[in-house]
């Protein structure tokens, strides 16, 4: 395999040809923040927080997209880079509720982490903020589009799974938002509640309804569990608070691991001491169902009787 040699922050780095700058830099131990970068759908380049300075380039370069080239001289924390990142964070916070005190995502939020790292305080830029209605229409997923930073990871992961593609970017300019078809609520959409979107959201825009207000992220211990419903073997995290299982959440979907509601519900029932109430969509509405029905075991249970 051919390699390329470049200089990152004064350090000589050699990586396989085709390596992204982001991976070359993080591999060498340097930190680069990312919001929109997703290994499963790379080269999006939307949030711009990962920009770095490449000597000779006219503008800053998105390291999640740019390929490492021989002889490149890269700075990942130069004054220009830091200024750009701070401004981008400032712009994000200016259009965000900044309600970290009560946010379920606090402690596990990239926006919060990067604001801390780059010392960006509460919004210095005033002006209009988005003001969307909180969408808790789906029994499993809470959507707060006021917290969305439009990294579009959820859109991309939803489109990757066959027969999904439920959400997309809608509108233009400042009004751009992630929305299901016709900008309907999630419950009205064709969403199958697989939670792929929740698993990739870097901020508090998409959260689990069952965990809302129950735990702080730093209070829980995570244990990786693998779903055995089908051959995909999707991975989930079992969350424990004070030793007691409180919920099961999806880990990022991998190649051929689609994630599904049935898988998550099955693990809930298996591990959670107080499992949530299963709900399924019948017609246009979500209704409470028995565990046997939720897991598609009606027939089997009948025969076992």
């Amino acid at each position, binding site marked *: 395999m051919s390699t390329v040699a470049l200089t990152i922050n004064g350090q000589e780095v050699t990586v396989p040809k085709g390596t992204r700058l982001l991976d070359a830099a993080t591999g060498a131990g340097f930190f680069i923040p990312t919001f929109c970068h997703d290994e499963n759908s790379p*080269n*999006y*380049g*939307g*949030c*711009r*927080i990962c*920009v770095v300075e490449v000597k000779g380039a006219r*503008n*800053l370069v*998105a390291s999640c*997209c740019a*390929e490492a080239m021989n002889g490149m001289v890269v700075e990942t924390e130069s004054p*220009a880079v830091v*200024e*750009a990142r701070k*401004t*981008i964070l400032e*712009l*994000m916070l*200016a*259009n965000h509720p900044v309600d970290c005190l009560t946010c379920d995502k606090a402690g596990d939020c990239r926006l919060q982490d990067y604001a801390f790292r780059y010392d960006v305080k509460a919004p210095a*830029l*005033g*002006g*209009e903020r988005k003001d969307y209605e909180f969408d808790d229409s789906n029994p499993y997923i809470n959507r707060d589009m006021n917290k969305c*930073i*439009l990294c*579009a990871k959820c859109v991309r992961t939803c489109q990757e799974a066959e027969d999904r593609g439920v959400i*997309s*970017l809608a*509108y*233009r*300019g*400042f*009004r*751009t938002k992630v929305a299901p078809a016709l900008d309907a609520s999630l419950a009205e959409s064709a969403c199958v509640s697989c939670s792929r979107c929740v698993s990739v959201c870097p901020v508090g825009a998409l959260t689990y309804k069952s965990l809302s207000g129950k735990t702080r992220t730093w209070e829980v211990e995570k244990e990786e569990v693998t779903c055995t419903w089908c051959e995909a073997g999707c991975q989930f995290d079992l969350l424990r608070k004070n030793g007691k299982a409180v919920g099961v959440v999806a880990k990022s979907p991998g190649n051929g691991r689609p994630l599904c509601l049935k898988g998550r519900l099955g693990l809930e029932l298996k591990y959670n001491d107080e499992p949530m109430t299963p709900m399924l969509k019948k017609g246009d509405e979500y209704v409470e169902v028995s565990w046997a029905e939720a897991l598609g075991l009606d027939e089997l249970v009948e025969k076992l009787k």
Partner: protein
Amino acid sequence: MGNLKEIRSSIEEQYKKRMDRPRIVVGLGTCGIAAGGNKVMDAINAEVEKLGLDVDVDFTSCIGMCYAEPVVEMGLPGQASVIYGGVYPDNVSKLIESHLVNKTPVTDMAEIQVTGGAAAYEGIPVMEKSPYYEKQVRSVTSRLGRTNPESIEDYIATGGYAGLEKALSMERQEIVDEVKKSGLRGRGGGGFPTGTKWQFVYDAVGDKKYIVCNADEGDPGAFMDRSVLEGDPHAVMEGMMIAGYAIGADEGVIYCRAEYPLAIRRLNLAIEVAEEMGILGENIMGSGFNFRIRIKAGAGAFVCGEETALLNSIEGKRGMPRVRPPFPAHKGLWQKPTCLNNVETFANIPFIVRNGGDWYASMGTEKSKGSKVFCLTGKINNTGLAEVPMGITLREVVFNIAGGISDGKQFKAVQSGGPSGGCLPAEQLDLPIDYDSLISGGAMMGSGGLVVMDETTCMVDVAKFFLNFTQLESCGKCTPCREGTKRLLEILERICEGKGVPEDIDTLERLAKTIKTSALCALGQTAPNPVLTTLRYFRDEYEAHINDKRCPAGLCSALLTYSIVEDKCVGCGVCIKACPVGAIAGEKKSAHTIDASKCVKCGACVPKCKFDAIVQA
């Protein structure tokens, strides 16, 4: 058709015969139609029938003198053709009677005459010597206003498809070399060398390649591409076909904005007729070269003029830019190598192939060759389309071609390059128009819109206008553009409302810098330019708004105050009646006063006062 050469001579002969008959030609570009050209056409047909005249009545596209529309040309055998401006149904009969029946041109309505070797009439400027055209060249616009754009015969008779014929006899690399030699740079705004781009696509490995024509012209005040598409659709197609042959593509797509229905109609017609004649389709002119062209109508997003967003849109995706590299030359439409140029670039190609790259490179400056079409709009006397050699100065364009500032006002700035460009002040008027000079001045060539502003224009307001545009048209994908342009706009709005604070200028500059250096695509990277150039050249206006709460141009209504000059006021009471909010009071025959707390600064009183007693400051 096996050989175009065989029928070309007969088409040329017929064309010559037609040119040597009495004829009336109505300008029916979108501008002509908007000015009432179709009604003029009806009136002419009725008049010709009434008088039983043996006259051909035809139509053409916009010749460029939009300020004179509706435009009608009249010609007699062996005589110069006269182009009349301001022709309406009520003066049609006078024109026909005088020019065609009595053979006396109506000089006071004549704009120019085209001699074509014949003797010129007295008292009418000859086109090449007329103020509007003297400094222009007519290359890529040579057929505009001169031929029927819906007639392939007119196109062929004026040298059309000769470039394709020649290209088909050349080696493919030879064509690319000729385009390189011409020095042609992308006319859509970026200015990337066309020949180099073609070489990339030529060299790119792929079983399938595409030609894509960017006809998504969206800059406010720009209509060059529309004029070329409406006036010479075959030239754009011929350019695409030559490109297709040269780089090895058999399919072309024209991405044209749906707001150009006439352009789309004429293109569709041109495609249909060219296919019928075997100029387009399978085995073109027996050469073995196949090429198809289809049109994709855009849905109205400005950002789709950005090449990668345009490709996404053709593929049926949301019009959002892709990260470059990979460039379209390597991974373009459907991830295949794609040669993507704009309308004017393609329209130049047939001329370059026919006349040679050296001919084209003889026009223009060292780094910007050839000619460029500009749209002249704003506070000028002659609004219209002008093709000029690269290197001409802004002053020549504004004061010679455009005829200077209208209503005797003072020149303030010229905006070049649309929302991505900048405003250049009077001291930059001698800047030569070429890619690099305009960028050094803080503006850019853009697609060719030139908006001229006079002393009554507020430059903060101009920046606000453009930021409002880019904010609405931002695709929303990247943070700096989506969020940053919004904050720039809000600050500008505040300043115009008199709520600006001194730190605002620093914040504008800081935000502008981040947007410029870190936005994803060219739309975002250039979006702050209107703010940066107005700050560079008109900083005093920003300071006046912020520090003195004053709009020097007298435009920002929140900053205006109205008062009545006691000595001038006769107490007639007209202003009292004109005021919609009852802010003016006073006894009859004694000086009136304006209550500033009630005044909504609508300005309605000012024109009503016959004694100029109300002043705005």
